[in-house]
């Protein structure tokens, strides 16, 4: 029983990181219809930025979070301005372009930092464990879970309660008329892309103590994040959250019952069956027209 609980807990902390990656992907796709294949590399950049801040400036992960968010958001903003923005009327080409950007980012890091795995220490403040009977929870993982819930809440507030969110929702529903009422769609898109990238950066920062930091680390993560977006249903924050938990936990449980490889196969098979019966995901957005 304890083994299962501990495995569920580990699954939940992985799910919360997946959620932050998936949120960024879902927001970028929902707003601009761009499938951002460079998203995993934004996670990787976040991880390396965290490593660099810790190694060269002695800044721990928690203090690094806001810096990493801004830095990766800035990278995303520049990429959107320079490349993605020119391709909005050619959606298929954005897939190729973002994939290429991803490869470039990977290789730039490989050439400048090196291919070997980098280590980032968890913050001392969160080094211990919290025990509940047989359930041993690392404080750091608890922090990750709480933080991702806070990110989800902040994103919800940003989208539904702020003027920026209103501008974005207006542009998504009717770009032409939004511009007739003073909304600069390009500016809104740039900021949205930057926000999504920033979320990926934070996920990368938080994952560093749990995962080896290598240039290709984003590739596997972005696949899982895509699964979260597809299972959750596009355009739904609630869907993304529940799908992240579902996939994180399913992966953890199947890996324990079978092994990592078979567990992976079981999860993917499960998703195929689910998509067969709910092709638009668990909670598809209803008010698109």
């Amino acid at each position, binding site marked *: 029983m304890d083994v299962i609980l501990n495995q569920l807990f580990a699954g939940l902390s992985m799910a919360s990181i997946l959620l932050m990656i998936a949120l960024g992907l879902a927001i970028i796709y929902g707003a601009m219809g761009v499938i951002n294949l460079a998203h995993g590399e934004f996670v990787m950049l976040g991880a390396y930025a965290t490593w660099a801040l810790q190694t060269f400036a002695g800044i721990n992960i928690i203090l690094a979070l806001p810096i990493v968010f801004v830095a990766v958001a800035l990278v995303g903003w520049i990429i959107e301005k320079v490349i993605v923005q020119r391709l909005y009327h050619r959606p298929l080409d954005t897939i190729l372009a973002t994939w290429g950007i991803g490869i470039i980012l990977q290789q730039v890091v490989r050439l400048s930092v090196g291919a070997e795995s980098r280590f980032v220490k968890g913050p001392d403040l969160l080094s211990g464990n919290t025990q509940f009977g047989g359930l041993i929870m690392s404080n750091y993982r608890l922090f990750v879970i709480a933080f991702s819930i806070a990110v989800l809440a902040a994103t919800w507030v940003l989208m539904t309660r702020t003027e920026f969110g*209103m501008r974005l929702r*207006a542009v998504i529903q009717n770009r032409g008329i939004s*511009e*007739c009422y003073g*909304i*600069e769609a390009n500016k809104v898109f740039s900021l949205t892309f930057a926000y999504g990238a920033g979320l990926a950066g934070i996920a990368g920062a938080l994952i560093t103590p749990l995962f080896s930091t290598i240039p290709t680390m984003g590739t596997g993560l972005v696949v899982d994040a895509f699964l979260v977006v597809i299972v959750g249903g596009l355009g739904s924050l609630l869907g993304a959250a529940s799908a992240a938990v579902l996939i994180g936990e399913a992966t953890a449980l199947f890996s324990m019952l079978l092994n990592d490889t078979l567990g992976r196969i079981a999860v993917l098979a499960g998703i195929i069956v689910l998509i067969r019966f709910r092709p638009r995901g668990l909670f598809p957005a209803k008010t698109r*027209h």
Partner: protein
Amino acid sequence: METMRAQELHSFYGKSPVIQGVSFDLEPGEFLALLGRNGVGKTTLLKSLMGLTDGCTGGLVFGESNLLSLSTSQRAKLGIAYIPQGREIIPGFTVRENILMGTFARVDGRREIPEYLFEMFPILREFIGRKGGDLSGGQQQQLAIARALAMDPKILILDEPTEGIQPNIVKQIEEAIIRLNRERGLGIILVEQNVPFARRACDRFMVLDKGRVVVSGHSKDLTDSVVEKHLTF
């Protein structure tokens, strides 16, 4: 207050010029009715004023500003409010959010909804929390006008505001448009199929055919023979 001045305006969809050399002046507070049969370019001309076509050549200024070098949102911020055919309110937004959206084009950054909008269209106050998409056509048109007025515009551009709307609301909308012009001094460019209303409301009119102005003049010149010649099918 600024004058809007179009000179030899050409406007394109792809490479085909839909508007072929239209010129007009709109003095501050003036009411211009734009008439013509279906498909002669009336809507395209309005879209050109907002920068919503594929390209424009010729001259188009508003006061000191050269509109052709400005983006759609920059034009809106000069105080040009466009109410398109089919209204295009945001169906997923509440009535309040739809009106508030109009204030995004304000340069002073104020975000309140002017009270007179609710006096003009009381139904909007009643339905303030409903989704725009749940309103009837006539209510949506009132909402679209309210959204435009929320930006405190200098010019209101309306594309067939009474098309497909139940008769009791048509009356209300027509009166509102006239009052906005007479009492609040708003310049108005109106595309309209209803000639009697256009004649009653406008200072000047312009009839378009095949992308060109075929006849224009003061409202008294909009005689039955003009209508007979250019507007009947």
